[in-house]
């Protein structure tokens, strides 16, 4: 394709996005407004992540895209193809080989290393949005560090359900300052946000926000002393690779209630299977 610039966006736009990214890295967890562009895929389908990836990709990068932890879900395929066509970058499914990983809803199981960039697609960047629908109000709350409402919500959960009834997009506090939405990752993934060696960038296209976590940032999931945060997952090993430490998809395998559990991170599962690990449902 020659009609478009490298990685689709024009250099002017990339500069604007990079400035937002740098500002985000300088103020971890702070939502930086940016002039999100209309992308050739719909808002809500990863336009924020795509714009961030376009702004950080270089011709020598190796790019990986996952959706729900998997490289072969249709939207991940579509975004990967987009950058193959517009940037001609090398792509991979191997977490360790990728220099830029764009993700929707998961953090890879394999710990990331320095030099890697993890780009999250974010639908609603504002952790306070469902407590206060007005942007003008939530921005004020962040600047005044007024997070009481969030604690009240979590506390009410405990009173009503005995637990904090938030299982994904579980809010975190960054470096003791900003409350941040980690995007709709399962809370199982929350501990990985902390002290990560890779750069974490969050892009919300429709909502026109970018935020970031530089490497080795302190990220704490909100909780109470008597109700500490708990990273939960289905209490099963992976049916294919036998892993007990990975987040699992639940699959319905017949019409009489049969089900099995498989790693949601397809690369993690495949690497383990190739190394000879076998779960109870593997052939």
């Amino acid at each position, binding site marked *: 394709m020659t009609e478009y610039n490298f990685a689709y966006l024009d250099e002017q736009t990339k500069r604007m996005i990079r400035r937002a990214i740098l500002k985000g890295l300088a103020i971890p967890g702070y939502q930086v407004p940016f002039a999100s562009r209309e992308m050739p895929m719909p808002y809500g389908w990863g336009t924020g992540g795509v714009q961030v990836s376009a702004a950080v990709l270089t011709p020598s990068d190796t790019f990986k895209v996952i959706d729900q932890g998997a490289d072969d879900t249709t939207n991940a395929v579509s975004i990967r193809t987009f950058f193959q066509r517009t940037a001609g970058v090398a792509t991979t499914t191997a977490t360790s080989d990728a220099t830029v990983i764009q993700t929707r809803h998961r953090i890879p199981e394999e710990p990331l290393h320095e030099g890697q960039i993890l780009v999250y697609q974010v639908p609603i960047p504002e952790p306070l949005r469902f407590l206060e629908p007005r942007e003008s109000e939530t921005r004020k709350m962040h600047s005044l560090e007024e997070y009481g409402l969030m604690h009240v919500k979590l506390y009410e959960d405990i009173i009503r*359900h005995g637990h904090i009834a938030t299982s994904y997009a579980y809010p975190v506090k960054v470096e003791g300052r900003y409350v941040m939405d980690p995007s709709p990752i399962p809370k199982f993934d929350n501990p990985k946000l902390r002290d990560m060696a890779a750069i974490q960038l969050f892009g919300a296209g429709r909502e026109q926000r970018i935020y970031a976590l530089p490497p080795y940032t302190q990220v704490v999931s909100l909780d109470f002393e008597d109700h500490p945060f708990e990273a939960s997952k289905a209490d099963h090993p992976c049916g*294919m690779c036998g892993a007990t430490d990975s987040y699992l998809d639940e699959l319905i395998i017949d019409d009489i209630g049969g089900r099995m559990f498989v790693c949601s991170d397809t690369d993690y599962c495949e690497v383990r299977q190739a190394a000879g690990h076998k779960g109870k449902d593997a052939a």
Partner: protein
Amino acid sequence: MYVAVKGGERAIENAHAWLAEERRGNTDIAELSIAQIREQLSLAVNRVMAEGSLYDPDLAALAIKQARGDLIEAIFLIRAYRTTLPRFGASEPIDTGIMACDRRISATFKDLPGGQVLGPTFDYTHRLLDFKLAADGEVPKAPSRDAETGTVPHVTEFLNREGLIEEAPYDDAPPPDLTREPLEMPSTRALRLQALTRADEGFTLGLAYSTQRGYGRNHAFVGELRIGSVPVEIDIPELGFPVEIGEVILTECETVNQFTGSKTEPPQFTRGYGLVFGQTERKAISMALVDRALRWEELGEDNVGAPAQDAEFVLYHADNIQATGFLEHIKLPHYVDFQSELELVRKLRREAGAQQLQEAAE
């Protein structure tokens, strides 16, 4: 034995091929040309140009063809194309006073300088299906007369001379650009109008209608509605004077709204304004009503909590490309989130069940 689902890439390719085939439809039927769409579905073309924020009838017609007539999809195609275009400059402000009007009506004055011109309107057609069209769409030539030249004064200027309508404050500052700056609140009127002119027609219509039914009522009269072409000029720095580069067809609606005065403003008529690409009068009138509703604060009116008064609500939800994208994204897999919810609900149910058992035992 479980085999992981693979082949997303092939599935996508095949889906695209099927889509293309469906778009073409039965090949025994002649294919639609871009020119046919442009000429014969011109109001659809106008809507796509208006909400796509790009004045190009041929591209809009192409987008409609490609989108199989789904206008929001066509608008999306135009927006995504528009965003890649280089910017050579901004035009001089257009002057709708010199519009060559195809249509110009006022609901507030029976007669006025420049006259009432009905133009090509559906207004007084009887909505009876015309079965003749099914067989033969050829029509006799409509009567014509020479166009009148010169300026057509705005109705609101007549009221202004008497001091009966609020002054439209003169502002020479370049307006903000919604497509180059993130939308931030509170917004200026210029920014609100910019968002409304590309807002979804249905959403704008619904909001405008809600003000008529009492949700922030503002007693609007169509002071004037005009449709026609205006020249677009661009300033060429090397020449030192503006040069006309073309014409655009616009619909402009100025409402005159009853106003009994507020703490800060005397009783006078107030203004709502709509300006939209193409012949798009439903949209332009809706825009003017919503614009007026959003002006409650500067006019010192009460906020009665009506949706149309709420700039954040209106501006953040009026864009159909944002809305449709986010709405439709729930089709994408959410296995991971759903799985975590499953675990949570199971856990809560287990505990609730155990508690009930215990209470029954006691």
